[in-house]
């Protein structure tokens, strides 16, 4: 549901990933980390929900 909400407000699908990885599953961890990194790289730098210096007085 978190994924649903986050994507509903316009955070690109592919920025938020979920996975169950046991401490014994080192290969899976590597695979998932690589996949996540790849997916996020393809999306480019995040523009949304990134805090920049406020435009205030």
């Amino acid at each position, binding site marked *: 549901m978190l994924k649903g909400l986050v994507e509903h407000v316009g955070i690109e699908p592919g920025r938020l990933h979920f996975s169950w990885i046991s401490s014994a599953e080192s290969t899976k961890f590597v695979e998932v980390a690589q996949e996540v990194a790849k997916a996020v790289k393809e999306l480019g730098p995040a523009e949304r929900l990134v*805090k*920049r*210096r*406020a435009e*205030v*007085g």
Partner: protein
Amino acid sequence: MLEKSYTKEEWTGALKGLQESCRIYVPVKDGDDHFFRLFDGSKAPDFGYQNTRLSPKGIVYPQSERMFEYTLDESDPDANIYKEVGKEYSPRAIVGIRPCDAQAFGLVRRNFDTPEYRDPWWVKSYEATTLVGLGCNEPCATCFCTFVGGGPFSEKELDVLLYDLGERFAARALTEKGSRFLDKGPGGRPLDDDEKKALEERKRSAEKKITSHVPTDQLSKKVVTELFDAPFWEAVAFACINCGTCTFLCPTCWCFDIQDEVMGKEGERMRNWDSCMFPQFTLHGSGHNPREKKFQRVRQRFMHKLKYYVDKYGDGIQCSGCGRCVRSCPVNIDIRQVAQLMNSY
């Protein structure tokens, strides 16, 4: 002092003419409500409004304001040294401000401009601002400005007062600053005799339309500790949900918080509006909180406005009777009723 009469188109033209030399804020309808916005041609001002949803205090005293900045980069010789942020205080004007909201600036000034300390940001911003008021032909049922030393055409704190005469605006300068403002803007002609007469008449008729009755005359005579211990606070506070609506909408609430924020190696010290309704407002580092309970916080809000302020400055309550809190409180806690309770206790 200068007096001028404008058709409504001329008045907008005058504002356009002044735009070059002055940042002008005007009431604009956005969604269901009116807000003060910079007059930049994108949205037409709407002077046929009752009052803005948020008070114009934010123009002088922004909800979030940068105070200092610094670098945390240890290789910089100035690392960790707080530096004041450069700000510009060129002239600006709030055009169409209601007299109650202008009066509120006077009440708040006592807090920010004191004999011992002057808050540089508030004071400079306030001094750079010309207040061009718009008298209220039709005060709301929730208005009670006449009970707090003001009125629908009160001139307090204003530099110019506008009278809406239907087809035309009559503008009356009340200070040198106001005269300069009118003088600089193009258009307008002197008032004719009928218009001069109409001004007084507008004022009288508007004052009669104030229907709320909010006596505050006994408050200064009350013993502060007795009012504090009055039995009605729990009942007054029961419905309160402790949100910040009343304090954030109020033109006379000034409390703030100071926070440091960091982005990478760059840091800044911000000040943000705060609210006595929030429990963290008074929470000690030790965990002790002198106003831990909801009723204590509600009591603080009313005692501050209606008693502590009265005692501290000896010149009435910290309220300009705009009625915003009455209209917008989500649970209908009504300062008019609380004032009556306190005044007659």
